[in-house]
């Protein structure tokens, strides 16, 4: 038992922090709440790649560093703390790589893994999962990929696809057994699709924050080589569920509005007793302490999940618990911060009167999405009950 980091881990954290500090001083980015996964540049990713910070947990034979998930968690915590612009490689690093390592063909591994790890040009990914009628219910996708000789022909529509307009490849989930009587959990497959393929149309969706951070993607007779199938045909649902465990456990579910929380604490520290009603100060003190408690709990839960993976276990229920817990905390931060700041919480970034560097208003805009991404809280709790506690389904 050791509830703290090793000196090597402390040194690693310091190294990451130093790198980020110098990037911020050079004006590469500044810590601001908003869309954590959208912002990014290949340039920034390349610098991280140089330091071995992409594919860190992957085995060495796949170009990774073979380092534990706890080390990766330290890296991610530091990145999220300042909301570093990691969008170019984030999804490939978190999801695509591990999935390929588990399920990919030799050629897929050899082509993609080294390129992702180096943050080469042309290997940015988007995830083509959700559909208008299949959000959390991935077994219900209607987009079809039908075998035609050496190719699959894809038709259908995806939605809520972050970065589809800039990504080079899409990680596609599609129905390969279109028979309506087929077992829905054994009739979908995963593919890697070149986003420049003829027949793909990307249309941005403007979100409530007024940004087009995600897209609709239309497929019209898009031809995909059979070699782009990942893993087994019709085994896509099983494969993707395994991937989700890793998606859900990350600190990104705790720290989407981390800079806001830091500023809120500072704001409460700085509140002038002569200008602040005593009632507000007492309330703010109690509430911010509760947030700090929940943050500490969530952080420990994230590291615990990383450690569990390092023990060679699949953290299904734990990861679901982690995400359900952490995203609720994030929404509470928004609520408490707005009540402490009052009406000015509405003033958006850019205006001189926007409080907490504009992070409050932006976080309020993004708040509703926290508990939706990667499985709604409801679905996550079902997973905890069914997989973790063994409760009956029927």
């Amino acid at each position, binding site marked *: 038992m050791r509830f703290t980091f090793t000196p090597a881990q402390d040194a690693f954290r310091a190294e990451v922090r130093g790198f980020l500090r110098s990037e911020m001083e050079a004006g590469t980015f500044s810590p601001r709440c908003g869309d954590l996964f959208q912002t990014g540049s290949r340039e920034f990713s390349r610098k991280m790649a140089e330091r071995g910070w992409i594919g860190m947990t992957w085995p060495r034979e796949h170009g990774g560093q073979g380092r534990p998930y706890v080390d990766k968690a330290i890296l991610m915590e530091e990145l999220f703390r300042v909301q570093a612009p990691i969008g170019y490689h984030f999804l490939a690093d978190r999801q695509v790589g591990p999935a390929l390592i588990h399920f990919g063909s030799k050629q897929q591994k050899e082509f993609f893994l080294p390129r992702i790890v180096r943050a080469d040009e042309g290997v940015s990914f988007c995830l083509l999962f959700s559909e208008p009628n299949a959000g959390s219910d991935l077994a219900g996708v209607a987009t079809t990929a039908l075998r035609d000789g050496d190719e699959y022909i894809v038709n259908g529509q995806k939605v809520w696809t972050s970065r589809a307009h800039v990504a080079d490849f899409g990680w596609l989930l599609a129905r390969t057994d279109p028979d309506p009587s087929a077992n829905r959990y054994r009739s979908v497959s995963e593919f890697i699709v070149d986003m420049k393929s003829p027949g793909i149309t990307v249309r941005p969706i403007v979100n*409530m924050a007024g940004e087009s951070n995600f897209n609709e993607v239309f497929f019209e007779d898009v031809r995909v080589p059979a070699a782009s199938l990942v893993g087994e045909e019709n085994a896509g649902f099983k494969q993707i569920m395994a991937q989700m465990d890793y998606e859900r456990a990350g600190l990104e579910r705790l720290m989407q509005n981390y800079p806001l929380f830091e500023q809120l604490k500072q704001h409460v520290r700085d509140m002038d007793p002569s*200008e602040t009603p005593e009632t507000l100060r007492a309330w703010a003190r109690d509430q911010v302490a509760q947030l700090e408690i929940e943050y500490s709990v969530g952080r420990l839960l994230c590291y615990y999940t990383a450690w569990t993976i390092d023990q060679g276990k699949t953290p299904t229920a734990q990861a679901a618990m982690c995400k359900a817990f952490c995203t609720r905390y994030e929404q509470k931060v928004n609520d408490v911060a707005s009540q402490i700041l009052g*009406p000015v919480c509405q003033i958006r970034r850019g205006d001189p009167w926007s409080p907490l560097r504009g992070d409050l208003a932006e976080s*309020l805009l993004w708040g509703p999405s926290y508990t939706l991404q990667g499985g709604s809280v409801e679905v996550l709790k079902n997973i905890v009950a069914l997989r973790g506690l063994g409760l009956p389904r029927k």
Partner: protein
Amino acid sequence: MDFGLDEQTSIVKDTARRFFREQCPPSRVREILATEEGYSKDIWRKMAGLGWLGLLNNEAYGGAGGAFLEMFVLVEEMGRALLPSPFFTSAVLSSWLIEEAAGQPRKETLLPRMIRGETILTAALLDHQGRDDFEDPALDAHQADSSRYELTGTRLLVPFAHVAEGILLCAKLQGREGHGPTLFLLDPATEGLEMVPLNTLTKEKTFALRLDRVGIDADRIVGDIGKGGIYMDRIRPGATVFKCAEMLGGMERVVEMTVAYVKERHQFGRPLGALQAVHHACADMATCLETARLIATQAAWLLSQGLPADKETATAKAWCNEAYKNCTAIGHQLHGAIGFTEEHDMHLYSQHAKASEMAFGASWFHRSRVADQLGI
């Protein structure tokens, strides 16, 4: 106890529901928000024609003579429609402040024109930190010469200042005639007044005012010197309850929208609305709505009768704040990603919920007022 609406009030409510459904469907809300004015002159004129701009005013000026409950249901319907307009700041706050504070001549000049929809006023209630500071304004009025003052300070979140003929604000006056919080009616065209449009969550047109020794004539003082706080105190309970009404309307629409969506949307092979978790979430929303309606209407009725309602008003706002917030949170959760898109109405309501939660006091403030009433 009689929880039913009177006939007269019911008629206003039904008329308003129909009027806004026709005049201001959600697509129109977006269009209006995108205009320079931020409101529809056409709708404004029609509202004037229906007599809605003078509900709180004396009949002598063309008003309805304090039709408090009618105003309550009208504002509720506005909240439901999310009508972008200067109604709250002009026809609720400003015309009522004028009614309470101004002398006869100013009332005669202003109120009939306001009620006919010919002019708009706005009220600047918040200081540079966004606090309602009528008791002890962070805005200074120094005597410049015998008939002039100079205003210095900042006002935030002043709605529709760009289309208002006058801005009501309360300044801490230090002068030969007296001192204390004093109400002024500032001409937006006054030299030296800097008006900065603010970009906010709701996209409602709203402004920061920067005043650095902005000159204002003594005849622009409204009412008596030193009584600004008192005038505001007279209208604050009502304004708070009307804000609750606005929230009620929004909440009702959110519940409707969400219940309809979960009935129709299928997931995992059956309607979303057949899941027990969805049943419970919808039951929670319905409870929020029903209880918020009861508690806000109670406060409105007491005020309409001139009965004491400090505790009930604080209870209503504290409760509506949390109820509306819960409803929009559940609404978003049940709508999923679709509710997070610009083209969906859901987020218009969640921004409205946040903005109105903050107006006239967040929940901690009203809990503390309830505690005062309990003597604890």
